[in-house]
């Protein structure tokens, strides 16, 4: 019997929502890591029972948790066979140290600060965990201040892939209002050495060699705060999505503008079309229709809630430009929530399920590609991230 497991990260813990393939009746479990912020949780495509979670706190910093039983139990991995008296494995799974070696030839110590001066890189938290499509022990972590880390031992130890910060533009990167975070990691399933990442507010980058070298892929992006239309970095990319069957076609929700690339990010064109606002955070692609994409427009960069108090997911079946509002089952009155960049996901069932989590604590699900929606749960803490595992 097929089913889905929805992994929800919130401001005050993690929740797991499960249902069978019909997706009508849901079981809600949690909170895990109660009281901590869970920026992201994601399962390994190679082993659905292997999950990773980023748990953090302004008081106590970063913790990485790992589950090997689909989220029933968790541990902080690391340190081999040695265990504490309570049975917890010893380790340093939360140790993210920026590379300062000469290996890259360009050890970076500063980036641009809000006032234009240079500022040292300082680790704050893990925004996004992206497990390898083929190896449950390998995971990429996108962190604030922006850098990409990798573990090859199931999150026991982490090592920076310094070529990204070593890209010549590093000292020009600057934080957006939410911090300088690497929030998007998209791996080409046919060629795992090809990875796309995005940073607020530096832009998008691509590697073809597993993270050793990177190129900025921001040509065609336009941002009012950047006078130079050919600026290599500085764009506030909010999210990038790709259909696994078409790794050269990328969709992007930028600070303003919904964009599309048909050449792996080398060039971009705007596909905002008839959207009521092209400001937003998440973007995702239908599991079986590579030209069907979803966004959640919000009013503006100053008013982070839906236009007219109506929560509407917009769907394009034409790869952009022509959009339709999906409203059935979503609040169409007095709704002033937001959907954050990592808080939309699709399952791989047929029909495709679509899920969004809001800053008001609701998780809405659609079991028919967005035609109609139902709240799976209404009163969670503010939702930071939503991921879906399709289980066979």
């Amino acid at each position: 019997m097929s089913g889905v497991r929805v992994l929800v990260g919130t401001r005050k813990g993690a929740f797991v929502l499960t249902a069978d393939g019909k997706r009508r009746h849901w079981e809600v479990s949690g909170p895990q890591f109660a009281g901590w912020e869970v920026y992201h949780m994601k399962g390994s495509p190679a082993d659905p029972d292997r999950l990773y979670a980023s748990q953090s706190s302004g008081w106590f910093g970063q913790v990485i948790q790992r589950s090997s039983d689909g989220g029933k139990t968790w541990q902080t991995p690391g340190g081999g066979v040695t265990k504490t008296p309570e049975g917890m494995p010893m380790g340093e799974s939360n140790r993210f140290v920026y590379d300062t070696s000469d290996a890259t030839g360009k050890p970076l110590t500063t980036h641009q600060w809000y006032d234009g001066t240079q500022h040292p890189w300082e680790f704050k938290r893990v925004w996004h965990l992206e497990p390898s499509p083929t190896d449950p022990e390998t995971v990429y972590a996108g962190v604030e201040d922006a850098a990409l880390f990798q573990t090859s031992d199931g999150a026991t130890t982490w090592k920076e892939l310094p070529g990204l910060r070593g890209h010549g533009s590093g000292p020009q990167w600057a934080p957006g209002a939410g911090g300088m975070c690497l929030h998007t990691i998209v791996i080409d399933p046919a060629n795992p050495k090809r990875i796309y990442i995005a940073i607020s507010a530096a832009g998008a980058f691509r590697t073809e060699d597993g993270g050793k070298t990177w190129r900025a892929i921001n040509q065609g992006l336009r941002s009012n705060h950047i006078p130079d239309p050919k600026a290599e970095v500085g764009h506030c990319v909010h999210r990038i999505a790709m259909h696994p069957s078409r790794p050269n076609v990328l969709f992007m929700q930028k600070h303003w503008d919904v964009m599309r690339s048909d050449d792996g990010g080398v060039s971009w064109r705007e596909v905002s079309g008839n959207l009521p606002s092209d400001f937003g955070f998440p973007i995702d692609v239908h599991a079986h229709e590579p030209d069907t994409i979803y966004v959640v427009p919000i009013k503006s960069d100053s008013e982070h809630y839906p236009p007219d108090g109506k929560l509407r997911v917009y769907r394009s079946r034409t790869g952009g430009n022509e959009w339709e509002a999906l409203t059935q089952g979503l609040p169409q009155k007095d709704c002033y929530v937001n959907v954050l960049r990592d808080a939309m996901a699709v399952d791989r069932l047929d029909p495709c399920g679509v899920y969004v989590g809001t800053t008001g604590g609701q998780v809405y699900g659609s079991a028919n590609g967005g035609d109609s929606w139902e709240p799976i749960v209404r009163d969670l803490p503010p939702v930071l991230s939503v991921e879906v595992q399709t289980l066979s």
Partner: protein
Amino acid sequence: MIRVVLPYHLRTLANVGEEVALEVPAPVTQRAVLDALEARYPMLRGTIRDHDTLKRRAFLRFFVCGQDISLDPPEAPLPGAVATGGEPFLVVGAVAGG
């Protein structure tokens, strides 16, 4: 034995009660207590002080015998009452809402 009182979220992370007892070799200092705490509960590494600089995290403070010792040198000996287990070493999180 040295008694260490942890804030709630570190108790749940380490799966312990409010207070833990540690063997700490003399001289008993702030650093020695934290070294022993992290050796016994390695999941706490990085949550009280930085992995590498060993600098105290900004929103945590250390108290003994009613005194805030957060800014004292980490190598300074702690009061005898702490060294003998009469008084606990308190790790306290900053009060904040939300």
